[in-house]
């Protein structure tokens, strides 16, 4: 008999990791991440500079007050769709609460940018980067013909796939960690690297009728909020990884798997914005992806979705996708 199962799994994961690195997929992920973050930081720095030139922005209270008033006025307009009016009222309420507590909701610091990116990135960007690596894991072996070697070694198919899933988890973790580190590091150049201890308000909830409920809101140090937010971003990125591995099992070509995932993410995001009141949208995993936003109590596109509900939706999709991937991978004929 050969060595123990954990030792074998470790060697399988090492193989998968080696292949991802040698294919240079992860390098592309890091490069795209750095490029996009630089762009966003640059744009925000320009915006801030322009605001300061015009004399705005020097007093965050005045600008928050102005925005809150604007939103309340627009929310009252009959031409605004009800879902958007709810969003505006909620957001205005959030701003007013910040004013009341004397905490700048849009403080521009490296750590604040990093925190904001957890929510921003988990909608579309982190899932896409995770999919770049995950879509390749199985389909590349199919299309390059190496699958028949991989599956004629004395290692049961489910173990081979498990090795690939663990590698997916590993690179997903690295991607999320890299996005936290890079967003802080790059934003630091423009807005400074300090500010981890600043208070942020979190825990807003959607009350009955779509109004803002501040009873659970509280101020926590930013670093604490960032750890929770990136933990949640990691959780939803893992769910995306599991669904992408299923696509990678189904499709012979990595491009088809990645393309399908991209189309799903983009159309899911659009769907949750334009059809927010459509009941079925809440069962779709893309709607549940921005867990950090649900946690922070930011106004979310589909009303009535709690953090726990979204986490459960993602877990359900990930579990179903993984189970299906195992069944297909273990049972199917390897031809051609």
């Amino acid at each position, binding site marked *: 008999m*050969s*060595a123990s199962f954990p*030792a*074998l799994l470790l*060697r*399988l994961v*090492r*193989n998968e990791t*080696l*292949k991802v690195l*040698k*294919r240079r997929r992860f390098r592309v992920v890091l490069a795209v991440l750095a490029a996009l973050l630089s762009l966003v930081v640059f744009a925000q720095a320009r915006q801030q500079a322009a605001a300061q030139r015009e004399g705005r922005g020097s007093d965050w209270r005045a600008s928050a007050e102005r925005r809150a008033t604007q939103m309340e006025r627009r929310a009252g307009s009959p031409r605004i769709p009800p879902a958007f009016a709810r969003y505006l009222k909620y957001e205005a309420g959030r701003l007013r609460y910040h004013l009341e507590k004397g905490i700048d909701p849009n403080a521009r610091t490296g750590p604040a940018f990093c925190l904001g990116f957890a929510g921003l990135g988990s909608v579309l960007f982190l899932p896409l980067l995770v999919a770049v690596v995950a879509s390749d894991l199985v389909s590349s072996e199919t299309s*390059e*013909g*190496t699958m*028949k*070697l*991989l*599956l*004629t*070694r*004395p*290692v*049961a198919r489910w173990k081979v796939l498990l090795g690939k899933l663990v590698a997916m988890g590993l690179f997903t973790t690295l991607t999320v960690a890299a996005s936290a580190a890079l967003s802080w590091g790059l934003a630091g150049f423009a807005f400074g690297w300090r500010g981890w201890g600043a208070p942020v308000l979190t825990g807003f909830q959607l009350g009955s009728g779509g109004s803002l409920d501040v009873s659970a809101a509280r101020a926590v140090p930013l670093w604490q909020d960032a750890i929770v937010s990136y933990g949640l971003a990691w959780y939803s990125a893992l769910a995306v990884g599991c669904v992408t591995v299923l696509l990678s099992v189904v499709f012979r070509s990595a491009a088809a798997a990645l393309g399908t995932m991209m189309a799903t993410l983009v159309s899911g995001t659009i769907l949750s914005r334009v059809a927010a009141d459509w009941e079925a949208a809440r069962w779709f995993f893309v709607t549940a992806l921005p867990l950090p936003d649900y946690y922070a109590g930011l106004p979310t596109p589909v009303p009535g979705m709690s953090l726990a509900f979204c986490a459960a939706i993602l877990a359900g999709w990930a579990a179903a996708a993984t189970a299906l991937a195992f069944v297909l991978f273990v*049972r199917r*004929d*390897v*031809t051609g």
Partner: protein
Amino acid sequence: MEPGTGGDVVLVAEGLAKRYGDREVVSDVSFRLRRGEVFGFLGPNGAGKTTTIRMLVGLVRPTRGRVLIEGFDVRRRFEDALRHVGCIVETPDLYRFLTGRENLEHFARMLGDGAEGRIDSLAALVRMEGRLDEPVGTYSLGMRQRIGIAQALLGDPTVLLLDEPANGLDPAGIREMRELIRHLAEERGLAVFVSSHLLSEVERTCDRVAIVHRGKTLAEGSLDELTGGGARSLEELFLERTGGETV
């Protein structure tokens, strides 16, 4: 141990059949493979040779029949059965973005049991020691074929399955391949299964032969038995058994 597999027999294929959709591409393939022999699996293109090999190594699930390797059923005891097998199915596909050595290390890690320690001696055996650290993407077909054989031998198997190993090689390459196959059977006692659509190649390389035609094995025996001690050529036998169709 399953019954009927003792002694020299290392691989048994029993009544194998495979249906794709409503087309049965293999309908009745049976043969036995013995230690130390080179076994030719001879049939024209499309006869079902590759499909049979895919069933032998568990890539494809047979519609009927079973495969025993060293007494282990490939479907029920996959890991125990495949531990004794090395194979190249259809084309010697390897990771083109890895070097020859990295490829061998990759598959050695799947085996454990000190397989990594055999890499250098196997590279020498297939005469690839000089190019081992170059990317496989730069190798010729013949070189990939040889690294493929080294890979197949990493686990110290008793059965080696090669799917048309002469395909795409030049005459010198074909001869080298033939010598390597004979060496593995005669010196190392491996059972080597070689599929081919080339009569002459099979005649030159193999000890025993099975003729496969339209998904059925029509005859199995030593070259001597099949040709009546040389009374007729393998070609004549083939034409007779397949009703005049050429290889």
